[in-house]
């Protein structure tokens, strides 16, 4: 069995020692992460439905945690109304609500040690696989919300698993996000459809936790239900000051059969760009270099961590954002923002005329904090470049934070290689 399969079996109700790919098991999650949404209609429906079903108390309320990370603080009166209804609902049921400046659930859950290795984290947001970087089973809510509130139960299909072996050393100016984009290009959007996605190999062993989170985050774009990196000494060291609760590190059996295995030499990768409008339409940045941009965005649960901001500051130090471009920096969490401030990165970014926002999902889902106008072009370290995502009629090029900032300086898409 794979570690991911063992986690599901361990949390099954009743617990199972064995599980086969394709089986649906009913589980009780360790964490159910929900959103303080801007959708007032959905809140009213849920409240009415739970009342209708006679649900007065939420059986796993102590395991539910609500994040105000999408469009927060509220960018409009209607969003404010939605936020209020959801906050009222959560508070009425004794569910912890994390404030709007704290950051994105996928970062905060692990930074604060709320999620640990071996946990099942059901997340209302689709980038749930991110927490796989600490050896947790993170998967997104697809239906089943009422069941989690009413019964505290959810269903998980025991996944097959695809193995991505990333070998070698990166060239200067190439980062974990370039690797993630490259893998997305190689596997396509169906490369791990409905499956688990494990990252291993010499590059992963040497990669920082920040870059490991970036890799696992992108599992979603390849159709994966969950990502995984086997916890090692680096993981445990990172967890030590954060995760104070007991946890279990699961390991994959030596004789486990992966659905498929892909070996990629990361040393051959140039800085990568996913061009509009598909995340798997990935090319070397040189192919689109010179393309005019209106906005450069650094943030999101894919690439809004301290190392991303450190890279941005290193590239732009002593330089300025091109006058025709808006460079927006949205740290992924308050912890990231505070550390970046302490390290002087935020000052450097301000001096370069970058716009630095509070920590949250920011412009990535197109709700606020950098919405694009029709005809505008953005280079972005965010998660997706679907048509219309950051603004109707706009184009999104996905790239690493280094490429985003190099482009912001140049006023057009540019390789960051000259800075490294």
């Amino acid at each position, binding site marked *: 069995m794979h570690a991911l399969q063992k986690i599901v079996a361990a949390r099954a109700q009743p617990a199972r020692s064995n599980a086969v790919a394709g089986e649906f098991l009913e589980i009780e999650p360790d964490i159910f992460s929900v959103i303080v949404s801007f959708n007032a209609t959905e809140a009213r429906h849920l409240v009415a439905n739970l009342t209708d079903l006679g649900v007065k108390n939420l059986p796993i309320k102590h395991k539910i945690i609500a994040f105000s990370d999408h469009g927060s603080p509220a960018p409009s009166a209607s969003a404010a109304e939605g936020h209020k209804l959801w906050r009222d609902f959560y508070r009425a049921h004794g569910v912890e609500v994390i404030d709007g400046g704290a950051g994105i659930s996928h970062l905060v859950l692990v930074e604060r040690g709320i999620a640990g290795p071996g946990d099942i984290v059901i997340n209302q947001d689709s980038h749930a696989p991110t927490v796989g970087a600490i050896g947790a089973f993170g998967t997104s809510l697809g*239906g089943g919300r009422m069941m989690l509130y009413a019964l505290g139960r959810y269903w998980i299909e025991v996944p097959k698993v695809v193995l991505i072996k990333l070998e070698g050393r990166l060239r200067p100016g190439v980062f974990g996000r370039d690797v993630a984009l490259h893998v997305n290009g190689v596997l396509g959007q169906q490369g791990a*459809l409905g499956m688990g996605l494990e990252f291993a190999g010499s590059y992963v062993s040497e990669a920082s936790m920040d870059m490991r989170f970036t890799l696992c985050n992108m599992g979603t774009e390849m159709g994966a239900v969950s990502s995984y990196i086997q916890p090692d000494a680096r993981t445990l060291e990172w967890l030590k000051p954060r995760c104070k609760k007991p946890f279990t590190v699961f390991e994959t059996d030596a004789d486990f059969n992966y659905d498929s295995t892909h070996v990629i030499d990361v040393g051959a990768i140039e800085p990568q760009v996913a061009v509009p409008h598909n995340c798997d339409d990935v090319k070397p940045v040189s192919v689109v270099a010179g393309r005019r941009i209106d906005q450069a965005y650094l943030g999101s649960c894919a690439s809004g961590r301290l190392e991303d901001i450190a890279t941005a500051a290193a590239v732009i130090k002593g330089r300025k954002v091109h006058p025709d471009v808006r460079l927006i920096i949205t740290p992924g969490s308050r912890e990231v923002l505070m550390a970046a401030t302490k390290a002087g990165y935020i000052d450097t970014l301000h001096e370069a005329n970058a716009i630095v926002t509070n920590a949250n999902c920011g412009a990535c889902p197109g709700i606020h904090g950098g919405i694009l106008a029709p005809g505008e072009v953005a280079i972005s370290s965010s998660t997706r470049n679907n*048509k*219309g995502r950051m603004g109707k009629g706009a184009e999104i090029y996905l790239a690493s934070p280094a490429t985003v900032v190099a482009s912001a300086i140049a006023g057009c898409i540019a390789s960051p290689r000259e800075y490294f």
Partner: protein
Amino acid sequence: MKLSGNAWKFTQEDISTDLIRGKAYSHLPAKEQGAHCLEELDAGFAAKAQPGDFIVAGKNFGCGSSTAAHVAVIGLGIGAVIAESLGKLFITNAASAGLWAISCPGIIEFSNAGDKLELDTANWQLRNLTSGKTIKTNSLPEFLREMIELGGEKNYLRARLAREASV
């Protein structure tokens, strides 16, 4: 249960939830969302589709964000979504709202636009009433079949809570 409808074909792969229903319409009532269903790919589709019709799609239909794009499909009155393969979140999101979303490798080859299709969820068989051919679809687990047949997650929970209370 058996249901039948005419096929609307969307052969493109990787049709994301954002393409099924633009984010700008997410706050609208289901019926109004339905009027914008898949408009980026076929502007006339929503106006022409009849209640009970089937969406026949290519690989990885409903990929991407977990946003409730199925609401637009239901709002339009679509009876079933049958695709070469489906985004995992879309399958269960749809089931939760009482919509059949079923994978059926070979469906694109098996049906032409406008064909009358009949889905039998008792044996996971799809009959093309126009061509006379049949094909096996992938199955859903029993609890999801029950959920959809009862009309969605709420009715399923009501039945289950009643069952558990009587034990």
